[in-house]
């Protein structure tokens, strides 16, 4: 990534951005930003690389939605000392390979992540999400929610890496996968690479079909089975829907999110 020449865009305040190619974005020291970011790769044939740097004491709430076809893209977010990131991300991509990395480079840096991916028809979504602790007293919590429909397949590696000497770091991974079709497949691996003793690290992974008892509960109040399934699927994207305050951004992504969850 460092070999690529980027435009540099400063992020601040409440903003909605659209980008179509590789970019570098940053939040200056001690500044706060609440950003809705649409990455539109439909006209791109090359891979895209998005680099975001949070300087020390910077705070960023980032809602990132990517639209593409057979693109691959890489996301790297670097956090300096005491920087804070709340990341909500979803990708409307088919047959792609995505790599997302959060590097906690400064002491006291903290990242909370919510990622949603879905696949349908005969598509295949492959991805890797890494949270790397390169400093002491860093914290990373990730919730990863995947939905596989029809004959599609989702393959994800979720990796938390705590390097040697990075004492008092905390890392957690929570993976939830919902399979809707008989031939749907989710292969999600929670991986912890811990090279330090004095840390807290945890992971959990639950993949399965819809809970029949949840469906029954909803139907017992008058919903049809289809309506119950839709409400359960829609619940997967609730954090994303609530995160962004940009009406324009929500108007663009809502139809895509609806398609991602429809049975």
């Amino acid at each position, binding site marked *: 990534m460092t070999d690529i020449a980027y435009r540099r865009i400063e992020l601040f305040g409440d903003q909605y951005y659209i980008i179509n190619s590789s970019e570098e974005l940053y939040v200056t020291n001690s500044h706060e930003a609440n950003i809705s970011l649409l990455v539109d790769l439909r006209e791109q044939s090359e891979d895209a690389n998005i680099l975001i740097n949070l300087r020390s004491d910077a705070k960023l709430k980032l809602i990132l939605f990517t639209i593409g076809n057979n693109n691959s893209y890489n996301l790297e977010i670097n956090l300096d000392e005491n920087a804070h990131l709340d990341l909500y991300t979803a990708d409307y991509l088919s047959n792609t390979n995505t790599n997302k990395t959060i590097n906690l480079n400064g002491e006291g840096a903290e990242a909370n992540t919510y990622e949603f991916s879905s696949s349908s028809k005969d598509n295949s979504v492959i991805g890797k999400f890494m949270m790397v602790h390169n400093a002491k007293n860093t914290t990373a919590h990730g919730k990863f929610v995947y939905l596989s429909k029809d004959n599609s397949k989702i393959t994800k590696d979720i990796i938390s890496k705590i390097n040697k000497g990075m004492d008092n770091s905390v890392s957690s991974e929570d993976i939830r996968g919902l399979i809707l079709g008989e031939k749907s497949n989710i292969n999600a691996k929670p991986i912890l690479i811990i090279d330090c003793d004095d840390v807290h690290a945890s992971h959990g992974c639950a993949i399965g079909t819809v*809970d*029949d*008892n*949840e469906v*029954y*509960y*909803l*139907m*017992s*109040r*008058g*919903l*049809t*089975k289809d*309506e119950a399934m839709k*409400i*359960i699927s*829609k*619940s*997967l*994207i*609730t*954090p994303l829907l609530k995160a962004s305050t940009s009406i324009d951004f929500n108007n663009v992504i809502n139809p895509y999110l609806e398609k991602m969850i429809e049975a």
Partner: protein
Amino acid sequence: MLEIKDLWVSASGNMILKGINLTINDNETVALMGPNGSGKSTLSYAIMGHPQYKIEKGTITFNGIDITNMPVNERSLAGIFLAMQYPYSISGVTNRDFIKQVVDKRPTKDGKVQSIYKFAVKLDKAIDDLHMEKDLADRYVNEDFSGGEKKKNEILQMKMLEPKLSILDEIDSGLDVDAVKIVSDNINELKEKNAMSLMIISHYHRLYEYIKPDKVVVLINGSLVKTGDSSLIDYIDKYGFDPIKKEAGIEDEVELLEECAFKGAK
């Protein structure tokens, strides 16, 4: 209102209910009592069409319509409500959105959907009446709720849906003394307002002090063995179910096994 005739219900290949005959009339409150494992919850789930419970024989009729094979959502829209013993959590779905969606399935008298404003006013009042936290409407359905909050949330849904028949499966379990009174007052208010029929399942005397049953039926080993008035509750509270079992000629399975083992040892 509800008529059950010769109902036999099985689950996982085991016959749980054996030939149940029960009628619940309009505006009638029926207390369903019995020892643990007698089939009380099975009966409530069978009335509410749970797919895990198979009706082997018999019929269930509601307001003259045979609902024996009716899908569960249609039974709900017909006016039956089940307040579950163990309500399920639905993560990511707020109480407000969920209740609005199910209320909208029931048009008002003029055939229209209730306005958002009227719905919000009614929901906020119902939450106040149940002494629930104000933020409850915006929390996910039953997620991270205490046991008592889950039970109150069932009654909240009942108040918003205004059913003709409510089945309350151990609604008082998990509620403190004050909460039982509050929940009972809310149930009685709805009963009085809409002439709602009730089937209440509870082991405890205090709920029946607040919601007076018109009829008490006792279920033991899947069969209805005794019917009486509310004095039967005091009797059971004092003497337990053993006298009723003896009267019905039901031998305790544990005692039977012990007897067989003793005879074998001889």
